[in-house]
């Protein structure tokens, strides 16, 4: 039993609120990503969970224990730091062995387990080296080994792949997923890379300015973003937004922006409009834009072929609109085309607080 519960947890550093009234429940054995832009409080959240930082308010539990008052050593967690934080004066073997030594594991047991962890991470040949004699990828594996070796209840990983090159990152992503499957421990994985979060996690907690935006499986985060921040943060190129007003009711409902008018009759709303003429943001993903003779005219500003697809940037009635289309499309900058959106994929957000307004029944 090693689920994790944050209840109304806050952390302030002087005037800066790093984590703001955050509640989150992570299941035992679950792989959860904490995702958000740099400076949104991810590391602070992890450090509080590890006991390296004391929450200003709220309670944190691991299993059925409230751990607020427990020292890091008493929490049965392991952590991989973004900087790896290998002990420079110890060998690879010494680094991996250190947590066992601190827990007074007997000598031959220590040797056995270091060898075991080294085998899993293919570090056998490096055991006598000092960290500075290792490549970034090797250091990263040693940091993982140090976390693995004592079989903790919870693994905390703070952007462990961010210092690796792209190819190694892809490889390590797969390795980490395999590792999680094999040992089945709770893993909390901090990243600012949506691709990592989307590919690895069972659920993603999106954070912004210390506040939890949404906590859901990757598919839902993408298809049913809780607000316009999550919608814009997830997906590349990001979702397009048009600002305007909601007119009419029921099936006659339309979105108005300047002289643009889009029928929204088929989008069920989550609540009936509290005020008439409500200000909204219409969100549409790049892959949900297509050519349509009945559509609105748009001018092509930029064509970016990537091979398997083409990214097009349009001027759509004064708004910049990014679309993702086929790789072999024949179109040039300066052309004028007619565009339409896949109506059931459009997302409507309240302009005031960014909350999603349309229901997901048609998604």
């Amino acid at each position, binding site marked *: 039993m090693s689920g994790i519960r944050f209840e109304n947890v806050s952390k302030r550093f002087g005037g800066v609120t790093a984590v703001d009234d955050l509640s989150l429940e992570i299941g035992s054995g679950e792989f959860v990503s904490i995702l958000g832009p740099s400076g949104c409080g991810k590391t602070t959240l992890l*450090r509080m969970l*590890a*006991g*390296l930082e004391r929450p200003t308010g709220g309670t944190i539990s691991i299993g059925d224990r409230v751990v607020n008052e427990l*020292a*890091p*050593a008493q929490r049965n*967690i*392991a*952590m991989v*730091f*973004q*900087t*790896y*934080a*290998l*002990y*420079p*004066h110890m060998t690879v073997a010494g680094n991996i062995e*250190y*947590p066992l030594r*601190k*827990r007074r594991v007997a000598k031959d047991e220590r040797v056995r387990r270091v060898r075991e962890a080294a085998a899993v991470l293919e570090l056998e040949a490096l055991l006598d080296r000092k*960290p*500075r004699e290792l*490549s*970034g*990828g090797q*250091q*990263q594996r040693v940091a993982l080994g*140090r976390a693995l070796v*004592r079989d903790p209840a919870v693994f905390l990983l703070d952007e462990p792949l961010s*210092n*690796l090159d792209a190819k190694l990152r892809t490889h390590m992503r797969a390795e980490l997923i395999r590792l999680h499957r094999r040992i089945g421990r709770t893993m909390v994985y901090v990243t600012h890379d949506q691709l990592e979060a989307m590919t690895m996690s069972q659920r993603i907690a999106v954070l912004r300015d210390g506040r939890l935006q949404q906590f859901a499986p990757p598919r839902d985060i993408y298809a049913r973003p809780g607000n316009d921040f999550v919608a814009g943060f997830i997906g590349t190129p990001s979702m397009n937004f048009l600002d305007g007003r909601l007119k009419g009711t029921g099936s006659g409902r339309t979105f108005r922006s300047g002289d643009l008018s889009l029928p929204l009759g088929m989008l069920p709303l989550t609540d009936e409009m509290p005020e008439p003429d409500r200000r909204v943001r219409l969100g549409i993903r790049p892959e949900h834009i297509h050519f349509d003779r009945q559509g609105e005219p748009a001018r092509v500003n930029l064509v970016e072929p990537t091979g398997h697809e083409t990214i097009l940037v349009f001027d759509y009635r004064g708004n910049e609109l990014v679309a993702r289309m086929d790789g072999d499309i024949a179109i040039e900058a300066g052309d004028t085309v007619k565009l339409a959106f896949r109506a059931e994929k459009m997302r409507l957000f309240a302009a005031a607080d960014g909350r999603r307004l349309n229901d997901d029944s048609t998604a």
Partner: protein
Amino acid sequence: MSTPARIARRFLFNVLAWAVVLVIAFPLLWMLLTSVKPSSELFVIPPRLLPGEITFEHYRRLLTETPFLTYLRNSAWLAAGTTLVVISIATLGAHSLVRFSYPGRERLARLVLFTYLLPSVVLIIPLYLLMAGLGLANTLTSLIIAYTTFALPYALWLLRSFMKAIPDDLESAALVDGANRMQAFVDVILPQALPGIISTAMFTAILAWNEYFYALVLVNNDAARPLTTGVINMLVTSFNIEWSLLMAASVMMSLPLIVVFAFLQRYLTRGFSAGAIKG
């Protein structure tokens, strides 16, 4: 690659470097040579650099007929004692200034520097009265305490900058790995700070070894005099300066420093760049 212009530049640089070395080393050389000349050769005109005859008579006299060895032992105790006290306090203090957060931490660190604004002359009378009041007047202990007052702020400041270069994550990692605060300090911080600690210890030892003013005022019996005041006191009087003995004494005073430097020099240059690794 090595064009004539390059070679010329190198040559010029070397000449300049050696010239500087010569200017600095000449007095030391003169001191060494004078200490092995017979007294009769000291004041010949014109002066001669090399001794006509080499004698170790002055060294023999210094070691057997004067309290030189007592002074030497006192100086050694002073340097060792001061260094031990200062390094123990400064290492823990610097760690606290860098790692713990408490109100007024930065101000405290700057206040440490502020002590430099007070000239030692201002402190010496109160210090003397304090030592007398404690019954420590004329003891090595009183000098160790006095030296600590000026060496500690300096050591704290120096070690603080060394410790700042050690990444926070190292200590955090140790804590997560199961260490308590003291173990994390001993297992991870200390080894990282060691080059800094060694060089700070060297500076402190040199300060204590060379100190003159406090020793002059706080101690006036031979049993507790260090080399600096002791040698001057016994060899330089209003009537006479024992140049040969003075030079021999100076050579022997410099020797320990030169030996220490020779072995630990790299710690003076290294260390400041000692940080942890990052991928």
